């Protein structure tokens, strides 16, 4: 059974959306869950969040940033191509509750992860404000999609080329000064999630983050994805990926994400050389 790419869209520089035919995954998926895919027979297993599903058509949407060999290779595939493997939905679904006012913060690919979450949060009767953070204007992802779902969208860019100048935490500070916030969801680079967690710790605002450690099987079999939450070791693929931000050891996560830095760079360099050769 092949997992055919039905549609591909470029969202911005280095970030792409794909609709993949995977009927079982589409049928069972809930917000906050992810899949693991392999591009080809010699490929690595990488996790990506389920951004959207269409159970009727058996379609799963993934949104990814091209950061290394596997994601770049994935991005080179065309509509009609097939992926070697595509398994899911994995992980625990987001705990959706009626909190009141929820701020959902996305940085980088994190914005994609937020899509199904905010949809569910809205449905549960929350007022939802989304903050999308990016380095610069052209990296702002999914603004119009987000606007269709939530009550308010706030954009922050590091260089001030679009929206508010500053970091997502500046956006959050602004909203917190303006109104009462009952819960925060933050998904993105680890330093961003850590900074958000620090801001909401004192005022004791319930804050949930979605962690992205390196994974292999995604079913609790290997322990590659161990994270420390509340001083205890947890497996993010089965106990998470979402955890209470105030309990997470972000420094450990940041370190563990660097475990294969050398090999990743080497692999990527070889891959780029090969692509250049093919282009000639």
């Amino acid at each position: 059974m092949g997992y055919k790419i039905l549609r591909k869209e470029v969202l911005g520089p280095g970030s792409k959306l794909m609709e993949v035919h995977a009927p079982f995954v589409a049928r069972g998926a809930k917000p906050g869950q992810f899949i693991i895919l392999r591009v080809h027979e010699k490929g690595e297993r990488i996790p990506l969040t389920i951004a959207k599903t269409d159970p009727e058509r058996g379609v799963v949407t993934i949104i990814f940033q091209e950061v290394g060999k596997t994601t770049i290779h994935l991005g080179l595939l065309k509509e009609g191509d097939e992926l070697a493997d595509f398994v899911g939905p994995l992980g625990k679904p987001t705990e959706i509750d009626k909190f009141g006012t929820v701020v959902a913060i996305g940085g980088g690919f994190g914005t994609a992860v937020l899509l199904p979450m905010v949809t569910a949060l809205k449905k549960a009767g929350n007022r939802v404000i989304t903050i999308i953070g990016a380095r610069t204007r052209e990296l702002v992802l999914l603004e119009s999609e987000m606007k269709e779902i939530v009550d308010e969208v706030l954009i922050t860019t590091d260089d001030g080329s679009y929206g508010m100048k500053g970091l997502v935490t500046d956006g959050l500070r602004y909203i917190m000064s303006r109104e009462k916030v009952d819960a925060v969801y933050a998904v993105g680079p680890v330093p961003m999630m850590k900074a958000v967690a620090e801001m909401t710790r004192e005022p004791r605002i319930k804050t949930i983050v979605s962690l992205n450690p390196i994974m292999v099987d995604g079913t609790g079999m290997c322990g590659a994805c161990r994270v420390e939450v509340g001083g205890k070791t947890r497996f993010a693929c089965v106990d998470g990926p979402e955890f209470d931000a105030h309990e997470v050891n972000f420094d450990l996560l940041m370190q563990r994400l660097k475990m294969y830095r050398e090999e990743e760079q080497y692999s990527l360099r070889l891959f780029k050389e090969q692509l250049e050769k093919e282009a000639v």
Partner: protein
Amino acid sequence: MARRLKLERTPMSKLPPAERIKTFDEVALGYTPEEAMAEAERCLLCRRPPCVAGCPVEIDIPSFIDLIKKGDFLGAVKKIKEANPLPAICGRVCPQEDQCEMKCVVGIKGQPVAIGRLERFVADYEAAHGEVEIPRKPPRKGKKVAIIGSGPAGLVCASELAKMGYDVTIFEALHKPGGVLMYGIPQFRLPKEIVAREIDYVKKLGVEILTNFVVGKTRTLDELMREDGYEAAFVATGAGYPRFMGIPGENLLGIYSANEFLTRINLMRAYRFPEYDTPVKVGKHVIVVGAGNVAMDAARSALRAGAEKVTIVYRRSRKEMTARIEEIENAEEEGIELKILTNPVRFIGDENGWVREVELIRMKLGEPDESGRRRPIPVEGSEYRIPADTVIMAIGQVPNPIVPDTTEGLETTRHGTITANPRTHATTKEGVFTGGDIMTGAATVILAAGSGKTAARYIDYYLMHRDEPGIWQKLFKGEVEL
């Protein structure tokens, strides 16, 4: 003319240690036809063969050995396959010394007949010589059975049911079927091509295998049975959840569970990085904690993947090591050091979070514990440190809770194994049977295979008597005996 019994078994050639530690090629090279026939000559073809009772799948051992004596190797493998669809695998990894071979009468005076080596030989012979023969398909029964997990238990149960005429689907979470055979046991002991070949045979029997399907996530067992028309299920999800010690520093970079380390190497082929994309980190000094088959496999894999020095640390004494003797010998031959009566107390890392040292403590043996083995007790003040840049924890696996947690009415024991009647393999949920490591706790390939075979018989019985009132109660209480 009465022939004298040869007391010594025919040796099997192995790659020499210096050569084999450089590659992942298989260590044991197998018999030649002449060697196999010579070894077969040692069998007395007992009328009431004790060896058969030692085999969990009851292979007709004297009959297949007799066929080898006559030079009919293909006939021999066919004979084995009546009872065991996985001969090339079992011939390699069964702990024969504790099973069939332990009971062999020749073993009373000399070395027992090398049943495992003979089994392996004929299976390999068949693969090398033309088409593998497929038994004719029986009439279909029009009933669907779901098998969860494609390790030895699932594969054997599926084969048996397919041979009876059921429509069987195996659901497997990973991208390749085989369970521990594929992701755990390394290439140099069990080449993956051989596992793939025997799985192919299972498929040819008519079994459908759906990979990338996590039961409990992709679909629950209840959905499969309620909505997708499976009338019975066999849960064989293994004992794949790794344990850690819970000591300081265990999440430092460079510390692996044996499962992760072996999965990267075997399933993902990290030893062939960068040809394969998945990397693995093997430093100069590798420490493996534990002394079972898993620990030996991890240690020997680390050596082949480039470690300079591999040390196995074990808290009890040599006598209590659970690995096969053959594997301990292989490891020592290859230069792996065993530190017995020693246990890690913490791991020390550098400023980037990489493990650099292990603090060990000496142990002594005290009174016997609940397992009947003498309890290891730390010797106070005996702590010392050794350098380590890769650590592999091989201290055991427990059952994965995904299926029990997502299935209504499927109860587990306090060890996390699925509650079931030991004879019939019936669980607390009607229509659901179990077997292999998820029922017994971590055990062996052949015990898992044997339990798959037994369960298949009771699954068949259940499906034939489904309408009888109280049938499940009878099965669960073990009141049916086949």
